[in-house]
């Protein structure tokens, strides 16, 4: 499993939360990206403190499932957030 720490968000990214869903303003594109509940959960953990492995384990525990069942979805969400310019690329822990 990847040991790279994910996040924190890029400088200038502004997240607002409404009824459990997060929307993030991207300073580079000046677009607002709305996240669903699951992606919002991923976003909250992309704080520069957790590697992907730990994010997956925390979410699996929260959802009552297994890490194997969600790892691809979580990794895909992180990739999307990076490609949207909201998170920096992975860095060494």
């Amino acid at each position, binding site marked *: 499993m990847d040991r790279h720490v994910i996040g924190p968000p890029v400088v200038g990214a*502004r997240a*607002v939360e*409404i*009824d459990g*869903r*997060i*929307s993030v*303003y991207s*300073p580079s594109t*000046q677009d*607002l990206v*709305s996240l669903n509940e699951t992606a919002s959960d991923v976003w909250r953990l992309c704080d520069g403190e957790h590697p992907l492995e730990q994010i997956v384990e925390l979410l699996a525990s929260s959802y009552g499932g297994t890490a194997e069942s969600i790892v691809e979805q979580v990794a895909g969400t992180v990739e999307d957030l990076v490609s949207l310019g909201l998170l920096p690329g992975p860095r060494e822990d």
Partner: protein
Amino acid sequence: MPRSSVLHIRALDSVFRLKTHDERMQEELQRLWRHCLVAPCEVGEALRFSVGLADGVWTVRGQQPLGAAHDVASAVLMLATHINAVAVRQCLGLAMHAGSIASGGAVLALAADSGVGKSTLTGACLARGWEYVSDEALVLGRDGVVVPYVKPLTLSAASRAVLGVSPGDGDERLVSVEDLGGRVASTPLHLSEVVFLSRQQSDGNDPHLVPLHTSEVLTGLLALSFNAYQRPLEGVELLADVAVRCRVWSLRYGDAHSAARLLTERFHAGQDAAPLSSG
């Protein structure tokens, strides 16, 4: 030599000085913009427009000629188009494409791009007791309150026919709120409901009102904003503050009167159905 007449109107944060030599034009401007008229003593810096008649042709001028028209109605429409463009561009608040109606101080925004039918649905709602805020723009001040923009409504010939007002000739025409049997909303106003409009051919299953997640208001209204590009982050934060006090809906409809009836049954303060959310 005809005597010139000058009117001053306030549209959002801009003041316009309108000059004409023609009495008919003066009366029509006063009638249509009566809710925006301001006394000269209240005016600081004003943008100057004039409407003149020569050889049967009306000429609308700002700092330079803006266009010509062959009748009063077309000339006042041309003038209003320019006033509107300046007003929304220069407004200090966040302005978004949305008709806006109110009941008991609570505003329902009918959000959609141009051409979807905001003004027609706004007019249909006025006939059912809603109060007029704007047919063009939902404007949020920096404190989150709704700023009324009570310009005359712009209605196509088809819309005027739907609403039963004198069709006249030509396509688009300006219509006053009184022409539609409505009245202007009293302030203060707070945003209560945001309804994203989707027009379709009537299929027997419309109008159809579906709740959306509150967060939809952020992306939905920002995409419809006239001026968020000037201060995008400020717009996001303002909408986020306001959104938590709103309900958000999608309305698919074909007939404006049926849609107005549904909105009135669901949201008008005088109705027994779902109460308005408080601000």
